[in-house]
Structure formats: C-alpha cells, structure tokens
C-alpha cells in the first residue's frame, strides 16, 4: 500500500539516512577550511591555514610517508602474490583447487582485532621486531582476500580456448600468460591493487597492534585526538578521504573499462566479485 503519508515517511527516512551518513563527513570537510580553531558553529569564514599547518608539520609528513611506504609495499606484494595464486588456482584441475581457494579468501571474514592480536602474538613468538615491515606483512594478510576474489573472478571469466589457441600457435606457458592472459586482465589487476592500496592506507586496528615506534596517518590522527582536539586533524582527514575516494574511483574505472572492452557491457567486475564473498 502506498499512500501519500507513507511515501512522505519513506522520504523523511531517506533524507535522515543520507544526512546521517554524509553529515559528519561534510562537517569535517567544512571545518578543515575554517579560519579559526573553533570546532563548532557559528562558522567564521574560510581559510587554508590548517592545510598549511599540516604540510609544514614534520610529524604529519613522516606519518604520511610511512603510510605511503606501507600501502605501496602491501599493494605491490598483493599484486604479485595474489595474481600468482588466482592464476594458479584458475588454471589447475587439481582436487585441492576448491579448498585452497577457500583458504585464500576466507580471511576476509576475520575481524581486524583478531588478525591484529594473532599477528602480534606470532611476531612476538618468532621474535620479529615490530616495524613498518610487520605492518605491511599484516596488511597483506588483510587485503589479500579482496584482491584474490577480484583477480580470480577476472581470470575465471577469460575464455580458456584463447589460451589454448595461443599455445597452439607456439607460445609456451609464460608467453601465453604474458601475451594473452595478462593483456586481457591487467586493468582489473591494477584496479584491485589500487583497492589493496586504499585498504592498507586507511587501516587502523591491525596497524595499532603490529606497529613499532613509527606512525602512520591513521595512527597519527588517533594519537593526536587522544591528546587535544586539533582542527588540523580535519584537514588530514579530508585529504585522507579524498585520496581514498580517488583510489576507489580508479579501481572502479579500471575494472569497468576492462569489462566494457571485453564485451561491450558496463557492468563492473568488482561488484560480482565481492558478492562471491561468503
């Protein structure tokens, strides 16, 4: 039954939902441009002073650099290992295929808290000093299933007859991969690596457990907020938001472009790939 009252109510809920989702974000963005240190209304005018402040802060710069290093290392390792795992599993007829795939993507269901504590205990056991390297290793555990699911879906959709045709024309396994498989899926793989980068760049909980003396951007924000309410945090958060958003857009654009190129449809690959997740 749809009456005017009902649709009015639905409209109100929708508006409330959107406001609830986006309102706080907009407030953060707005106050990152505030000309005074006040974090509440009334708004007194725009300025870029908080951005200038964070760009001149050595602490922020070092945290940002660390975040970039960790995210790059994570994305690169995931790209290589995830591609190998997905390619291997989609091109074998072994019985281990199903169970192995499950092992590769099941960690997607693990809570960050669990991954963090488990890895912390493991690192302590094998006496590894906590550093950015341990953070990157932990992030690999976290982002690998996402990458794996997307890469596997992309490789599964390729026509195996094309690889047979290439082999028939004289290409050995490496050349088949290099000249036929990779050219068809690289946009999806790069897109998935961007996603891995974004996930790692933002990650807080796992990082919290396995980081040593260094700091990453999310860590820095958290530790600053614990001490004071500093308006420059708004500027950092806004930049973090924009950067992550950009990476997601790149991911989305690459996967949907690749899909369109494949068969003239605009359905992006990320969506069905993530729907496969249990």
């Amino acid at each position, binding site marked *: 039954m749809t009456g005017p009252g009902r649709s009015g109510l639905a409209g109100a809920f929708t508006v409330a939902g959107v406001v609830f989702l986006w309102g706080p974000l907009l407030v953060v963005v707005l106050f990152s441009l505030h000309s005074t240190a006040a974090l509440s209304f009334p708004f007194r005018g725009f300025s870029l002073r908080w951005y200038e402040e964070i760009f001149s802060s050595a602490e922020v710069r070092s945290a940002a650099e660390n975040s970039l290093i960790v995210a790059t290392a994570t994305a690169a390792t995931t790209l290589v290992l995830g591609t190998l795992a997905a390619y291997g599993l989609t091109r074998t007829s072994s019985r281990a295929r199903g169970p192995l795939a499950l092992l590769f993507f099941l960690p997607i269901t693990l809570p960050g808290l669990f991954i963090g504590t488990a890895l912390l205990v493991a690192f302590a056991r094998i006496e590894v000093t906590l550093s950015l390297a341990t953070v990157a290793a932990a992030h690999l555990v976290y982002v690998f299933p996402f990458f794996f699911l997307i890469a596997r879906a992309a490789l599964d959709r390729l026509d195996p007859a*094309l690889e047979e*045709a290439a*082999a*028939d*024309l*004289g290409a050995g396994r490496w050349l088949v991969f290099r000249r036929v498989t990779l050219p*068809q899926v690289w946009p999806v793989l790069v897109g998935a690596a961007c996603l891995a980068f974004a996930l790692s760049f933002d990650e807080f909980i796992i990082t919290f457990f396995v980081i040593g003396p260094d700091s990453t951007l999310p860590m820095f924000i958290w530790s600053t907020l614990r001490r004071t309410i500093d308006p420059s945090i708004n500027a950092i958060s806004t930049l973090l938001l924009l950067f992550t958003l950009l990476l997601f857009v790149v991911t989305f654009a690459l996967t949907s472009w690749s899909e369109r*190129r494949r068969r003239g449809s605009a359905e992006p690959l990320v969506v069905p790939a993530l729907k496969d997740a249990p």
Partner: protein
Amino acid sequence: MSGEARVRLEGVSHRFGDVTALREMKLDVADGELLTLLGPSGCGKTTLLRIIAGFERPTTGRVLLAGEDVTDRPAHRRATNMVFQRSTLFPHLDVFGNVAFGLRVAGVPRAEQRERVREALQLVSLEGYEHRRSHELSGGQMQRIALARALVNRPQVLLLDEPLAALDLKIRLDMEAELRRVHRETGATFLYVTHDQREAMALSDRIVVMNAGAVEQVGTPAEVYGRPASTFAARFVGDANVLPVDVLDVSGDEVSVALAERRRQVTCAGARGGPAWLVLRPEAVQVGRLAREAGADELTGVVRDVAFRGTGFQYRIAVDALETELKAEAPASSPELAVDERVTVDWTPSACWLLPRDDDARAAGGPLPTRQETPA
C-alpha cells in the same frame, strides 16, 4: 598412399573418467590430403583433433607427426595449427596482431612478419583488414582470419574443428569453396572435422566415418557413398534405404535377392549367400504409375508423401509387404505422383549395395569386421 604418413595414430584410446571418447583409433593421413572426420555429435571427433594438437594426452596409443612420436610433446612444440569451432581471435589484438601472433612468438623479424601476414590475408581474401578489431568482423570473416592465423605459420598439418558450423548456409558454401582453393594453393595437409555429411563430401579427398569413438570406414567420398562399409555409414553419409533381404544366388557381380517375397537383381561385388542389408540410395529408386497388372516379381506400393525439392520430387512409399517406408527421388521433369496413388517400384541394379546382416555386434561397439576394398 605413398611415402610416410603426415599424421599417424596408433591405437589411440581416450577416456574422460568413465566416458570412453575414443577406442583404439588407427589412422594414417597422407601428405597434402584433405581428410575429413565425419561422425555424429559426441563420437570423439574433437577429442581426436585435440589429441593431435597436443591439448589432450591419449590414455593409450601413440601420435606420430611425419614419423616422429609426439605423444608427450606439448601443444606449443608441435607443427600443427588449429582452427576452432568458436572464434578464438584474441580480443585485445587487431587482425594483424592476431595473424602475426605465431610469427612473433617464433621471433620472426618484423619485415618478414608484415610480408607473411599480408600473404596470409590475401590467401583468405581479406587484404587490408590488418587494423580491424575482432568485434568489427562478421562470423565468416572471423573464421577466415582464424584460418590465416593458422596458415601463416606454414603448419605441417592444419586441424579444423567444424570451422563453419556457426555460419549460415550461404556463407558456408562460399567458405567451402574458399577452403578447397586454400588447400590447393598451400598444399598443406588438412584434417577437417564435421558432422555434416554434405560438407564432408564436398570438401574431402578422403572421409573417415566415425561412430562411438571408433572408425567405421575410410574412403573417398564416392567409395563411402557408393560402397558403405556398414549400415551406420550408409545411413550417415547421404540418405539411404536400408532394407533386409536374403541373397538367393550369386554369379559374379550379379546377385539375386529376395525382398518382400519378390526376386530382384542387384549388382554388388563380393556378396555372400544368406541374410543381407540392401542399401538403396533414394535417387536410384524409380517410381512409376501402376498402369497395368503387376508382374509376379514386381514391387508395388502406395505413395504416402510427396515433397518438392527444387531439383525434383521426394516420395515416401509404403511398399506392399515391407514394413519400412521407402524413400525415393524423382527428377522434376518426371510426372508428379499424388498421395495414395498406387505405384511400381524399381531400381538400377548397379546403384545398389549389399552388406552382411551381422550389424548387431557392431552396434554394441565390438570390433569392426574388416571388409576388403573392391577394386573399382
């Protein structure tokens, strides 16, 4: 056949789990011939090609290419090239990239690649298509590019797995002529798979009739059509009436048989007394209006169905005292007979063929009785 076989299969059997796709296949393909594998769906034709190409390892048996055992050699190191049933053009490459693929992989210099790609495209009448993408081609063009992509490597053996199956009839006929020309011009050995007997007859130097993973008969189209080795081959290659008869007496090639209690003459070499199958092609059957009283040994019947087929009429005739209906074809110039009309049925004795009636063993998949080729 003279010289060494291009392709030789020695006792090749293949199983997929419980399914036996091929049983003890023996086959020699001569250099430069166009050999067709003809058989119903699921009889193992694709499996056989895939074994020769190196995509599948036979469960038992050996594959020899030009005398060399290649059973354990992977596909990319065999001098064969394949054209698949579905288009397998690389979507990320244009026509040039597709055709030049094998040459690039083999490290052929750029200038030579260009020259050979141009020649190959010329061979399939698609010069100037270098920069098209595969989705900008029609189905027939795609298969011609696939043909060029295979031929550009100058393979010893070209394997074609129903390359025309997805095309409509008009384009198929054009492509058949094109394939015959390409085969003449390249002189390569073609191994062609089809389940279309018309296509097989139009193209082949020799036909291999396959059934349930085994060879039923090998011969030229005329041999297979005129002297089928089994009732399966008779029915599968062209239309045929297969009638149970009893051989009464044999004098040389002249054989008397009893069909529906009438004594009839048949010309067939190597017939033996006893029960037999009479293979009668529809175009060899003559139907005439029953004008007078039928003779004692004359076959009579009733027209059950008439269809006009452009070149003539196709009849189904219920012959008196015969259970199956007889198919007959009459030229368009002959007077048209009406349904329910009473007719006499006759045939040219030389257009018949007799087969021993022991098909039950063969139908069950047992070993094939070897049949001596009769000199033409």
